[in-house]
């Protein structure tokens, strides 16, 4: 099906949004000291929303798989539905991991409640951060899947693409706002997208990230580069919490009087993460936990759900306390392969 796009003028969009914030909680990135953070939209900040730009600090999982959540009883979020604005393609790609992880035989009702109750409005990424590398892991800087609505900013307004029935329904009261876009507008959006891709390719040219990363890392799981690569890691767990696809959680119970089960984000970089009864752990050393995280992202998640666990959002690079540059390390692993191994991998 050919995708249909409409033009909505900026003033129409704002009046539509003003209507949405009456009945729903709308989250949008707003610049705070130069950083894009998600904030609830109010009539006061409606004009400060940053639609395009780069991805926000908070990954999308924040809204669907909250850091702490009650697992029994009434869902805490029942009431107003949520709308998340300006979701970027890297975060949408991460949904393919989360949807699979929380789907299947034991589908998680909490995740799916949030997922179905949240309208995702995606936008193009127009000024990627220096740490962004979605194009190197099979992604694009513009939305192409899993959004309900997608916006592309052009002078005086937006081009709107409808992704789902949910998105169409949400837009239907405002049918009168939708206009046929001009050819120039369409061309402009395509031109912008190509431009951003060029920027991304250029800034990642110095890294040699091989297509078959999972096998490259796995075939070298015993090399000393894992020690060297993890040398500056301080085990803060930031890379886990900021990652849009990381979804490890712990369960805990609060009171003895009443049965309340809580779920919270966990991080595989923590030493106590895999400690069993009696105190033993299969990964007592930092380089093992570090390696496990990389193998999980590039090999295990792909085997489990058919999708890479890395979407190239660069959050783990941007926030790393030890300044660990994942792209550089990945290139080093690719370079470490002997010619012989490279030939063998091409055949896989």
């Amino acid at each position: 099906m050919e995708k249909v796009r409409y033009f909505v003028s900026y003033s129409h969009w704002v009046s539509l949004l003003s209507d949405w914030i009456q009945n729903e909680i709308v989250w949008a990135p707003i610049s705070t000291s130069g950083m894009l953070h998600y904030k609830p939209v109010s009539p006061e900040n409606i004009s400060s929303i940053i639609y395009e730009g780069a991805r926000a600090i908070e990954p999308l999982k924040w809204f669907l798989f909250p850091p702490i959540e009650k697992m029994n009883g009434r869902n805490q979020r029942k009431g107003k539905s949520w709308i998340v604005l300006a979701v970027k393609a890297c975060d949408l790609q991460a949904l393919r991991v989360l949807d699979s992880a929380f789907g299947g035989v034991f589908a998680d009702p909490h995740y799916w409640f949030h997922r179905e109750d949240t309208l995702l409005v995606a936008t193009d990424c127009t000024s990627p951060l220096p740490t962004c590398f979605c194009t190197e892991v099979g992604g694009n800087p513009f939305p192409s899947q899993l959004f309900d609505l997608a916006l592309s900013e052009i002078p005086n307004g937006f081009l709107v693409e409808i992704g789902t029935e949910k998105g169409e329904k949400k837009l239907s009261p405002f049918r009168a706002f939708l206009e046929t876009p001009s050819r120039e507008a369409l061309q402009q959006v395509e031109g912008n997208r190509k431009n951003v891709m060029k920027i991304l390719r250029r800034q990642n040219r110095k890294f040699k990230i091989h297509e078959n990363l999972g096998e490259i890392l796995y075939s070298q799981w015993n090399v000393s580069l894992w020690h060297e690569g993890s040398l500056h890691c301080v085990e803060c767990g930031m890379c886990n919490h900021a990652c849009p696809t990381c979804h490890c959680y712990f369960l805990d119970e609060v009171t003895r009087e009443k049965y309340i089960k809580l779920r919270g984000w966990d991080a595989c970089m923590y030493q106590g993460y895999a400690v069993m009864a009696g105190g033993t752990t299969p990964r007592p050393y930092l380089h093992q936990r570090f390696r496990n995280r990389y193998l999980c992202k590039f090999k295990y998640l792909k085997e489990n759900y058919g999708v890479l666990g890395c979407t190239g959002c660069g959050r783990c690079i941007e926030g790393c306390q030890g300044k660990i540059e994942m792209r550089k390390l990945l290139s080093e692993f690719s370079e470490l392969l002997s010619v012989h191994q490279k030939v063998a991998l091409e055949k896989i």
Partner: protein
Amino acid sequence: MDPKNPFVTQEAIIQKIIPETPKIKTLIVKPKRPIPFQPGQFMELSLPGIGEAPFAPSSSSDHPDILEFTVQNVGYMTSFLHQMKARDKVRIRGPYGNGFPISQLYNKTVLLVVGGVGFPPARALLYQLLKEKKKIPRLILCYGARTPEDIVYKYQLTYFKKNLVLYLTVDDPGKTAWKGHTGVVTCLLDKIEIFPENTMAVVIGPPVMMKYTVLKLLEKGFRPDHIILSMERKMYCGIGQCRHCMIGPYFVCKDGPVFFYAALQNLPDVWEA
């Protein structure tokens, strides 16, 4: 509570507690509704406000209405389980995991190598194998405990001796009048005649014991696909989501806890380092 919620637990009442050793007790519990299970599968036991932990039933899978859990006091949750008395309540959900591939043991010698508190899931398997005795030509159990006092199910040893070939060993007999073998359980493997090509080895125990038993079995000529392991990992969810139990790409809670060594042999961090 939402019936579709996979974290829903049901109540179970403790019927009786059997002290096995100073640190191990067997809890006999009656869940509100019977829980049919396969030997080797596990369930999550929880105490509100205390925590939740995975345990494999040690009782026969013929009795899904009365379950036995043999618990060693090693941490926070298990210390509370050890304080429980008859008629106290626990909460339970499951069963989870794959269980032992019993049909693949037919017409083979089955060699069970069990260490310490690895006996509970092994006992559930033994009950099943003894029930299908005609299909199992030879059944050998090698069991190692730290001291004679640490042997579990002492009251059943005569029954097991009567029905299978039982080898017992203790690491340290101390000052007791122990007359049996001494040394770690892998030493027993040198004392028995085994034909690896027609034998399936089932190994259950603490990680370090399993690691050295596997090495010994490989040395004896066992193929990796003739070694069956019941793996232990940290688990929270039990349903293949929380990823705490991963061994490489495998979920111990969902793809395991029973694995053929062949599946794990090339993966990093299988045993504790």
